[in-house]
């Protein structure tokens, strides 16, 4: 009995921590959705682009870890700058759907550029953190939990707190929230939209880099990272597209639910339900709570 409970705990905690990796990817989507009410289809490509550049800097140019990370982050700011200037500004008066289509195109451009610059083979990313159980926890709590999962959890927590403080207490954060509510009114009182867009796309780029590092360390830096974006979709549907806490909670829920279901219910379906169970959950949310758990409700005065 105790063993079974321990096993359940292990599955649950492992799932929750793995969920933070989804949260990290979802976070990038939320940032851009808040500012431009657009689902950024290129987020997956941004993850791939940023972490491949990071690996490239380290492995092809022998740039030290920290410097390579900073360079990759700067590169993502440049990507944000180019996106604002070349894609978003010309489409300023276009509908949200047009911008959505543009992000799909942007995704292909980023994928292509990344592979043209750094090659197509799978790269190994060693963060110096192993993807194996931490001995101390295994000995004392009898739980086998990966060090990489714990790191991802910590990193996600730090990023969320950082972004929360940025939005709540800084001037540019206030500007972003204003733009998120009513871009026209924001520009009428002198909030420059292009600065806000630049900030958001750069921040989403850096978040993509962090998420890419975590996933790259686990699964290798490869083209498949682009499809991670798909896993963020149920996370966002559950958490709410416009909520940072929502992205986190949504990720945790998806992580925990898919692992628990995989272990306990999976055998009845012949296993591998991890791949589709989150989408089933997402469908239920779409039916019964379309704004997600934490999404901003549309407030309408009656």
């Amino acid at each position, binding site marked *: 009995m105790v063993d079974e409970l321990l096993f359940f705990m292990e599955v649950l905690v492992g799932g929750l921590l793995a969920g933070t990796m989804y949260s990290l990817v979802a976070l990038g989507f939320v940032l851009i959705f808040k500012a431009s009410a657009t689902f950024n289809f290129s987020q997956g490509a941004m993850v791939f682009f940023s972490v491949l550049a990071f690996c490239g800097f380290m492995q092809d140019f022998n740039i030290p870890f920290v410097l390579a990370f900073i360079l990759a982050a700067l590169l993502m700011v440049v990507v944000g700058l180019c996106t604002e200037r070349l894609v978003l500004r010309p489409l*300023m*008066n276009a509908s949200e759907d047009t911008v959505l289509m543009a992000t799909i195109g942007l995704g292909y451009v980023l994928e292509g550029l990344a592979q043209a610059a750094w090659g197509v083979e799978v790269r190994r990313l060693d963060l110096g953190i192993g993807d194996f159980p931490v001995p101390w926890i295994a000995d004392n709590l009898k739980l086998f939990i990966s060090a990489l999962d714990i790191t991802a959890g910590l990193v996600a927590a730090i990023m969320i707190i950082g972004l929360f403080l940025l939005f709540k207490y800084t*001037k540019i954060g*206030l*500007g972003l*929230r*204003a733009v*998120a*509510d*009513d871009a*026209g*009114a*924001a*520009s*009428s*009182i*002198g*909030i*420059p939209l292009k600065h806000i867009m630049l900030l958001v796309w750069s921040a989403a780029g850096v978040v993509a880099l962090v998420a890419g590092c975590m996933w790259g360390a686990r699964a290798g830096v490869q083209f498949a990272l682009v499809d991670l974006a798909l896993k963020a979709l149920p996370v966002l549907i559950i958490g709410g597209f416009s909520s940072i806490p929502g992205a986190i909670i949504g990720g945790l829920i998806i992580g925990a639910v898919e692992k628990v279901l995989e272990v306990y219910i999976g055998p009845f379906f012949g296993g591998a339900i991890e791949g589709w169970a989150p989408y089933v959950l997402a469908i239920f949310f779409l039916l019964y709570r379309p704004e997600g758990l934490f999404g*901003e409700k549309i*407030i*309408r*005065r009656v």
Partner: protein
Amino acid sequence: MSNNSANILDIKNIEVRYDNVILALHDVSLKVPKGKVVALLGANGAGKSTTLKAVSTMLASERGKVTNGSIEYDGNAIEKQTPSQMVGLGMVQVLEGRRCFGHLTVEENIISGAYSRKLSKGDINQELEKIYTYFIRLKERRKSQAAFTSGGEQQMIAVARAMMAKPKMLLLDEPTMGLAPQLVAEIFNIVKELNTKEGVSILLAEQNTNVALKNSDYGYIIETGRVMLDGTAESLLNDDKVKELYLGISKKGRKNFRDVLKEESLKKKSN
């Protein structure tokens, strides 16, 4: 009227098109003297909002363009400026329909108006307190989410927010739309007070002709993109045509809009 150099805003014969095709303004000229309140009156679709947006350069975001004529603000021509540059120059537009940031608190809404200025926390609080002296109601509700405040309060938030940018000139687009008469009076009292105490010049678009003229120095009446009539507020209030068309008062009993138009065109023909 005062001489040219005393005008903060000088619009000369502007023509505005949307999408390069739809002609919204044919020929509008108007002047706003420094420190005065000027009312821009007319029915729905007459071109009031378009005129204001041409001035604040918000037209570009609606695919509109000034295709003819010129606008001079504070001695400089308005051409390629962006809305945020105009705010920097001291011209702020309060958009039609209030447009508060619903998910932000009342106070956050107002503070966001100071975005274009480089102010310290202390300065912002000082400015905020000053603004609250005009909008006492908002101070009580400072922590509420703006979306849950009343229509009158939202209008006050929108004006207070604009005032945080320390404007030399305010453009108010239908500030009393959909408000109860008592609130209309309250909003206009605040507008008058801001005008006299802060020295802000004001151009306001209104459908509420009577109240607007009573609180203005000068008025322009536009119809289908053209200025039909202008004069001091007093002269317009006493003008028979205005009385008939916009105030619904007539010597010969009540008339509807169409009758007056018919009469006018008959007169024109006979001239």
